[in-house]
């Protein structure tokens, strides 16, 4: 069938873009081997391949221990935020929605603020850094509150009340966070840095921490691609087509939130990706979720990996926060696409 072949072509294009991003991400950085040696060395490290690329063990260590965890984490965070954003936009039929809508980001921010306020001094000796964990738990708890409030007043079938409940709960969490910050001015800088988001200092341990959440969440979302297409005709018509609207929406929101909370807790709040990448994919490849979800996953991963590159180089040795870079590259590109494609968003 013709559409099936076009689906495959798009998926291949997405995979190629992702591969390109990984190679670029691994090849650039302020220190380390010549950039063109890195792709060769990556091939060399594959099983059954062996040739001399002129990359020393020490240089390889920079690539493998410093750059690759960053690339991997960037890919996981970008992919997760994008597929979650696409799912949120689909399930709420609202193009302005991002995965932070129901309070995942505000909750994580509040959790991180509380953890940082208690003080690094107290927690430094703990075996586990409490900031990501607390951020993760607060993110989940906040979304749960939103869902409970929204369901209580609008019934589980209404997406609009959920969105409104999200607005209220986010404002509340932000207010509490501001109050805490205002009374503990000494942690403002640290909290602000956390909120801006970062991939620098990523380790394989961070990657291992989020992989299970991203994998499970992505699989669940991918399995609901057809349901998301049915949601496009509205909650009521979806119900008459045999979809259990409330229950299906809950499953999708839980999956998207779990993954989002996990990546937010290690990388901070990286904005823009979850909102814009799904739109770019829609403009290029169409709005059907059969393509939208996998392409958002791959495109978001590639986008964040690439967005992390100028951050390392622009203001070295200091790092430009990646949230700044994503908005800086993403916004003009998005406007360009909207103009050339003549799409009414």
């Amino acid at each position, binding site marked *: 069938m013709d559409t099936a072949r076009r689906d495959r072509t798009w998926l291949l294009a997405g995979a190629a873009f992702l591969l390109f991003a990984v190679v670029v991400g691994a090849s650039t950085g302020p220190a380390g081997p010549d950039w063109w040696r890195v792709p060769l060395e990556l091939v060399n490290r594959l099983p059954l391949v062996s040739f001399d690329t002129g990359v020393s063990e020490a240089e390889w260590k920079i690539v493998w221990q410093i750059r690759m965890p960053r690339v991997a984490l960037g890919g996981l965070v970008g992919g997760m935020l994008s597929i979650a954003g696409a799912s949120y936009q689909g399930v709420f039929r609202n193009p302005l929605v991002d995965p932070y809508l129901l309070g995942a980001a505000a909750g994580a921010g509040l959790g991180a603020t509380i953890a940082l306020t208690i003080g690094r001094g107290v927690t430094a000796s703990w075996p586990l850094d409490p900031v990501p964990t607390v951020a993760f738990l607060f993110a989940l708890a906040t979304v749960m509150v939103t869902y409970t409030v929204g369901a209580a007043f609008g019934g589980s079938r209404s997406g609009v009340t959920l969105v409104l409940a999200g607005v209220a709960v986010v404002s509340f969490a932000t207010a509490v966070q501001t109050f805490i910050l205002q009374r503990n001015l000494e942690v403002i800088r640290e909290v602000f840095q956390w909120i801006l988001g970062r991939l620098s200092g990523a380790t394989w341990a961070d990657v291992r921490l989020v992989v299970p959440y991203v994998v499970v969440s992505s699989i669940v979302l991918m399995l609901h691609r057809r349901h998301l297409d049915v949601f496009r005709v509205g909650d009521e018509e979806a119900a*008459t087509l045999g*979809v259990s609207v409330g229950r299906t929406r809950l499953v999708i929101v839980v999956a998207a939130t779990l993954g989002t909370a996990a990546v937010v807790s290690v990388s901070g709040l990286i904005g823009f990706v979850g909102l814009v990448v799904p739109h770019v994919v829609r403009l290029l490849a169409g709005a059907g979720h059969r393509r939208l979800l996998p392409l958002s996953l791959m495109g978001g991963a590639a986008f964040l990996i690439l967005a992390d590159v100028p951050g390392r180089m622009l203001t070295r040795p200091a790092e430009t926060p990646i949230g700044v870079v994503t908005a800086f590259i993403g916004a003009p590109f998005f406007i360009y696409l909207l103009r050339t494609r003549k799409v009414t968003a």
Partner: protein
Amino acid sequence: MSGVGLDGVTVTYGRRASRRTTAVAPFTDEVAAGEWVGLIGPNGAGKSSLLRAIVGLVEHGGEIGIDGRDVREMSDRERAALIAYVPQQPLIPDDMTAREYALLGRSPYINYFGSESHNDRVVVADVLRRLELEPFADRLLGELSGGERQRVVLARALAQQAPVLLLDEPTSALDIGHQQQALELVAELRRHDELTVVSAMHDLTLAATYTDRLTMLHHGVVVASGVAADVLTAERLGDVYNVCVTVDVETDDATGDTTVIVVPRRGAPAP
């Protein structure tokens, strides 16, 4: 073929007792398998509420059964395989193709984690061909005209292959030519697929022409039910719609078919 049994069906809106309004007072009727019943009545009479109750979009009192099975005991998917519903203003995603849209009608037959089978695609291709939508099948809905969209919505409902078809004002957005085409189509499909049809309609002449039987609602209460010539009288229409009309009944001498024509007259009574 499936009949629809309605036994003391009520629909009320508002949770608090003080604000509760009754949209449909106890409504009892038996729509025979293969019958086309037209629901008529002024705005707010309860026509849409009744249709929405049958398809499970609003809670209802009393009992609604398809072939004797209570709709409340059915799963969402089971019900969707028995009842197809075309709302008054369907939400049509502009960036979806006609074929993708019609394929949504196959949802009741697809497993939770499954995707459309070859058979589903064959059914949809067949429906699109019958509704003469093949040339538009891979065009985006946003590019289609109002009449074409209306047919695509019908195509989705027919792809559901449900024995009961509910239509809420199926022709209100169409010009007179497309109105006739759409209703002719429903009439033909009903004969061919042996569908049971319940439709809410505003145009009384069209309702009289195409349906087997009319039920007139007013404030949620049935005020008349039966063949068009009996239900549509100038006096009753004046009472219920607050309108000034004359009703002509023409009988074809050869076939014995009657045609009921409702003509509005100048000099509407004061509200």
